[in-house]
């Protein structure tokens, strides 16, 4: 299948300068020479422990930060070469994200209608009835459009985040630990919803999680990440001994829980 997103030898280094008179700087390699490609319509899983560089990878793909080396190609455009927000805007329309913390990813001052239609306003697209339709798409009542995030549960807020991400009908969505803060039942409901939306809209999804079980169940291909590196990419997990020692540990931990 044709690749929609290609990461080619991407490296991101954070320089930490120690305070004081002797300002020694320490390099922290958050993402180390990573290469992979994700096809249109594919659900790609990324598994890794906290601090392994998953969120840095998300920020790089979303163009929120620039890599130190390598290229990130979306369709045919290398987004690392884009210089201004204006140049980035056509790409923004094609990619959206859902973040981990449902309580902080929605502006508490805005109504659900304003939250969901904000991306449409930015691109001067028609808003009539879109918020209501998307709320129903994600399993919420259309009559809730004037509610504020504080009136919703964690799972409902995450559904609103997904609705906002769908507003522009993007080619791909990045789900950064989108189910990590939810209880098991709500998490399962969100995964089922995402499967349904993937079937309906055929959009690429990058699903990031530290839960190997959820990723295994939901994603077409899975990448294992540790210390800023991709250790292996698999379609199906086989017997633990066939995998990288770190993947073996993850698989064994899953069996024991």
């Amino acid at each position, binding site marked *: 299948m044709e690749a929609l997103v290609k990461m080619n030898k991407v490296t991101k280094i954070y320089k930490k300068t120690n305070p004081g008179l002797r300002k020694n700087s320490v390099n922290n390699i958050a993402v180390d020479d990573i290469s992979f490609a994700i096809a249109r319509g594919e659900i790609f899983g990324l598994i890794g422990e906290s601090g392994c560089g998953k969120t840095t990878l998300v920020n790089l793909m979303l163009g929120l930060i620039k890599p130190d080396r390598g290229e990130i190609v979306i369709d045919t455009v290398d987004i690392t070469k884009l210089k201004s927000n204006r140049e980035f805007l056509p790409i*923004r329309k094609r990619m959206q994200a859902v973040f981990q913390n449902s309580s902080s990813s929605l*502006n508490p001052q805005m109504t659900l209608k304003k939250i969901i239609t904000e*991306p449409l306003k930015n691109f001067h697209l028609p808003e009539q009835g879109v918020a209501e339709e998307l709320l129903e798409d994600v399993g919420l009542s259309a009559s809730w459009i004037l509610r504020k995030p504080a009136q919703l549960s964690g799972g409902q807020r995450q559904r609103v985040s997904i609705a906002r991400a769908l507003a522009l009908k993007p080619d791909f969505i990045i789900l950064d630990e989108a189910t990590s803060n939810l209880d098991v039942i709500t998490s399962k409901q969100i995964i089922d919803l995402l499967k349904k939306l993937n079937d309906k809209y055929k959009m690429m999804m990058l699903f990031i999680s530290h839960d190997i079980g959820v990723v295994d169940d939901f994603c077409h291909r899975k990448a294992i990440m540790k210390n800023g590196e991709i250790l292996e990419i698999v379609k199906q997990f086989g017997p633990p001994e066939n995998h990288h020692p770190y993947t073996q540990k993850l698989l064994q931990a899953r069996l024991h829980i």
Partner: protein
Amino acid sequence: MASIMIVLAIFAPILAPNDPNKIDVMNSLNQSSSEFPLGTDQLGRCIFSRLLYGARTSLTVTAMVLVVTITIGTLVGTLSGIFSDRLIDKLFTALCEVLLAFPGILFALVIAGMLGPGVLNIMIAIAIVSWAKYARVIRGLVIGTKNADYVKAARVAGTNHLHMITWHILPNIKNTIGTLIVTDIGSTILTISGLSFIGLGAQASEAEWGMMINEARMYIIKSPQMILYPIVTIIIVVLAFNLIGDALASNEELEGL
């Protein structure tokens, strides 16, 4: 108490039993009477009427000083916070550091001394000294808010800088700015009265609490109520605004939990 004082200030022309500037030396330094509820000063002017009109001067000047300082502080602080670590932020931060390095009241004295006595000039002097404090606090608030996930999500959705500020950042810090303003009303009233007391603010003919204390100090033995009433009024009003500020600040802390 604070709202009573605001109402009294607004309706001073109706509520004042006498013309605050009407000189009647035959009635100077009178005790309380039905005609002069709090007695008269050395020129026979009604102290009660002068206190009411003084409230107008003090509260109007305070309001105008705070409007100017908060406008400049919000503008500078927001720009600085949005473009943190860029040249504009470094310039604004350096300017604020320089202004905050001066002892505020002395700097205001120098400016007021240079501009000459007068209510407008002390407003300018206090505004020049005070905006930097707001700018620094607001810069911190903006930096804190711009790292929230909903701002990140808005960036991904293509929201521009102006909408980022007006839709996401200012609405979420407005309560804290409001608390900051109310907390500062008391100290601004004290500064205005202090500058008027030393002759840099209101002129002798104008009814102003600081000026009233200044005029009354010569008669502290002969007619102590003349100095007592404006002092008590200042204490009550400043205390009332400080208590409101404290209550709002506690409320903010509770909301932040």
